[in-house]
Each structure stands twice: as C-alpha cells, then as structure tokens.
C-alpha cells in the first residue's frame, strides 16, 4: 500500500510539473520534441517551467578544443544570441556564444563549432552525468553504511533497518545469479554483478522521479555498461571459450569459414543486445508515460485526464517493476556471459 500511495504522489507531482511545460507545446511536432527533450541528455537540469520562466539548475560545461580546455556554466548560454547556422547539412536555429577560446553554437543541447572539421570534445557534466553522480553518491553512502554495519555489529546480530532490506537482495544476486549461473568460480564476479545490479536499479528508480534524468535510458550509459561486461568476459575467458569460437567442436572443416565469423560476431552481439535491451526498455517506459500525459494537451481537454492519468499511474507502477526487472535481466545475462567465458570443457 505504501508503494502505491508513493507512486500516486510521484505521478501527481510529475503531472503538476509537466502541466505548465506542456501548455506551450500543443502542436504534435512540439510534443514529440518535448518528449524527446525529456528523455535526452541536456546541458542544464530543467525542473519546470512556470509562466514562461524556466526553472533550471545550471551545470558545468567542459569543452576541449584546439585552444585547450574551456570550462563554464551552462547558464552562460542564457545570454547567447539566436542565429541561423549550418549544422549537419541543414540550416538550424542555434544559440551563439562567443568566448575567449572559441565561438560555440548550441542546438538541441548539441554544442558545435562553425568549422565542422575542428576538434571539439564535449566532456560536460550534463544532466545525466549529474544524475549519475547523485545516484553513485546514494549507492556509495547506502552500501558503505551497510558494509560498516557488518563490520561493527559482526555477524552475531540479526540485520537491522536498511541492512535487512538489502541483505536478501544481495544474497539473491550472489546465490541465484552468480553462484547458480557462473558455477564454482563465481566469487570474483560477485562485486561487479552487485555493482551493476544496484547501479542500474538505483538509476532506473531515480529516472522515475519527476524532473529526473533518463540515465539508464541513454545509449551511452548502457553502451558503457555493456563494454564493461564485454571487457570482463573477454579478459577472463579461458581456452575453452576461445576454442568454441575458433574451432567449434563437432563442426565439419568446410563449415568453419562460415562458423568462425559467426562466432566472432557473436562476441559482440551479446553486449550489443545488453546495451539495446536496457536502453529500449527504460526509454520506452518514459515515452509511454509522457505520451499518456501529453494526450491531455493534444486533445486540449481536461477530461482526457480521466483516462490517461489512471493509465499513467498503472504505467508508473509497471515501471517501478521494470526498474528492478531490467536490473535483474542485465545482471543475469552478464552472469551468463561470464559463465560461458569460464565454462570448463565437458
């Protein structure tokens, strides 16, 4: 019951915050853009718009150009001028910001230079990075606190409070994911699996908060997580794993020119599927909730809310479940790849 009431409250706040935002975006094209803006990364943290006034948290922009590092806050763009400029073969409206080291243009949160060939690396602390930092801080505080509980009280007392909430989840990841799937040599993988599981879960949950970033629904984030899994799989893989790729047992020699490339591609398709699955699931959930709410503004009628709000609430509840489910799926598949990498010949 607690969770449901919490979700209701969350949805209500989300609706309140979104309402003003949507009122300026009645056109379908605008709504599409708005939804994409919500699920995309940004250089500033937009919380709400009240009567044309944007409430945002400025974030640091870190750019590396031929002239070296350039660090400034994103609200510098508030004083920028709007100009027409060519970007990726199109004339687009962009904000033009002239600074000592270079002149930057920004459209749809993408920063570029006038000369497209010039070097520009964007290491900004974007909304996703900031949100990730918050989640990581939360993770670090929560689990180092739990760790200290084990150190302090030893093992002779029953777990208490937050420790007793997370302990079954930790043992689930250890016993039902790592031990069950990887096999006897599971222990060295447990810290990584636990970190991945809780990182994804925490970020999924934080992503459901109103005004929050869509961290785990960002392809760069899922890409990086998949790369970590891929690197660990490849580095710890044994002879048997490579043997299955370059000399699949029981395959006739004339099939090898086909099988070996297929197996080689397989090395990369596994993490690729990890990347896409998490990204698509989380992004889709966000798009559905936003679309349901946007329906009110597309039809320009408050009565649509009678149907779309309950649906949005149901979706939000579902997303709470999807948050842990996708964390579980990612961890489970990661464990399976680790398991296949260290599987012994049988």
């Amino acid at each position: 019951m607690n969770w449901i009431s919490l979700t209701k409250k969350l949805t209500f706040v989300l609706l309140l915050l979104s309402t003003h935002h949507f009122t300026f975006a009645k056109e379908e094209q605008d709504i599409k853009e708005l939804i994409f803006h919500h699920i995309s990364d940004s250089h500033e943290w937009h919380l709400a718009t009240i009567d044309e006034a944007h409430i945002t948290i400025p974030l640091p922009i870190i750019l590396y150009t031929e002239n070296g590092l350039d660090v400034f806050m994103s609200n510098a763009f508030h004083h920028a001028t709007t100009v027409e400029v060519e970007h990726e073969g199109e004339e687009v409206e962009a904000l033009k910001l002239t600074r000592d080291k270079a002149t930057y243009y920004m459209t749809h949160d993408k920063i570029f230079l006038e000369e497209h060939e010039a070097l520009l690396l964007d290491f900004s602390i974007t909304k996703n990075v900031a949100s990730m930092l918050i989640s990581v801080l939360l993770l670090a505080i929560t689990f180092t606190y739990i760790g200290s509980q084990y150190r302090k009280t030893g093992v002779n007392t029953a777990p208490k409070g937050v420790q007793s909430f997370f302990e079954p989840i930790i043992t689930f990841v250890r016993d039902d994911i790592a031990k069950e799937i990887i096999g006897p040599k599971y222990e060295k993988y447990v810290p990584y699996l636990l970190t991945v599981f809780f990182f994804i879960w925490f970020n999924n949950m934080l992503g459901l908060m109103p005004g929050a970033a869509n961290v785990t629904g960002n392809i760069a984030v899922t890409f990086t997580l998949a790369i970590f899994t891929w690197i660990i799989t490849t580095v710890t893989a044994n002879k048997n794993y490579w043997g299955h790729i370059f000399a699949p047992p029981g395959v006739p020699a004339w099939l090898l020119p086909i099988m070996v490339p297929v197996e080689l591609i397989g090395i990369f398709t596994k993490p690729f599927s990890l990347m896409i699955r998490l990204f698509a699931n989380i992004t889709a959930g966000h798009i559905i909730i936003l679309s349901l709410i946007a329906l009110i503004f597309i039809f320009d009628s408050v009565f649509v809310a009678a149907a779309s709000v309950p649906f949005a609430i149901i979706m939000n509840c579902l997303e709470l479940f999807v948050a842990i489910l996708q964390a579980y799926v990612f961890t489970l598949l990661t464990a399976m790849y680790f398991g296949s990498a260290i599987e012994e010949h049988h």
Partner: protein
Amino acid sequence: MDLVTPELGLIFWQTVIFILLLVVLGRFAWKPILQGLRERESSIASALKSAEEAKVQMAKITSDNEKLLDEARAEKDDILKKATQTAKKMVEEAKDDAKKEANRIVEEARQAIENEKKAALSEIKKQVASLSLEIAEKVLQKKLADEPSQKALVEDLLKDTNLN
C-alpha cells in the same frame, strides 16, 4: 542530442564514475558485506550442526541411561533370584547333610551294637567251650579211675580199630 548515438562525454564520465564506484563499493561495501554474510552463514551452519550433534548426544545419553537402568534392574532381579536359589539350596543341603549325618550315626550305632553282639557271643562260645572241657575232664577222671574201666575202654577202642 541524438537518441541512439552514444555521446563521448557521457561515456567518458560514466567510465570514470563506474570504475570509482566499483572500487569504492568493492572495498568498503561488498567486501565487508560478503565476508559478513559468509561468516554468518558458516556460524549458523556450525550452530545448527552442533545443535544436531547435541541432540544426538542427548538421545544417546538418554538411551544409555535407559540401558543402564534396564541393566541394573535385570541385575537386581538376577541377584535376587540367585540369592533365593542359594538360600533354598543351602537349606536343602543342610537338610541333606543332617539326614546323612543322622543316617551315618544310626548306621555306626548299629555297627557298634553288631560288633558288641559278636564279641559277646564269641566270649560266650569261648566260656562254654572251656566249661565243657572242664566238665568232660572231670567226667573222664571219674569214669577212668579204676583199672577195669580203663581196660574196657582200650578194648572198645581196639574193637573199633579192627572194624576199620
């Protein structure tokens, strides 16, 4: 920002943040947690095991006690039975002995009487014989005191000899 194009900056920051998270959690969270869990599990397992052992021990002690009691009871019964038997046997033996002794005494008495009787009889026989000899001597002295009677006897003896 494009939806399906990974941003370099985000990849960079996530790599840094995630490695830091792995290190921090690995050192300060997972290590003590997993170690604590392992210790607790092994302590629970050993506690359960020792409880089971204690149960078995208790059962063994109880059954030992029972067995001891049974043995003691059986021994008591045995001792009682044996004692009764011994007592009976002793009485029986005593009776037997007494009877035997009595018989023996009676037998001895009879023997003694018999012996006395025999001795007395032989004494009497001796006395009778010596008396008879004395009497015969006296008779013969009287009968053969004169010449004619002596001659008559010789005659008689000779006559007998002739006949033989």
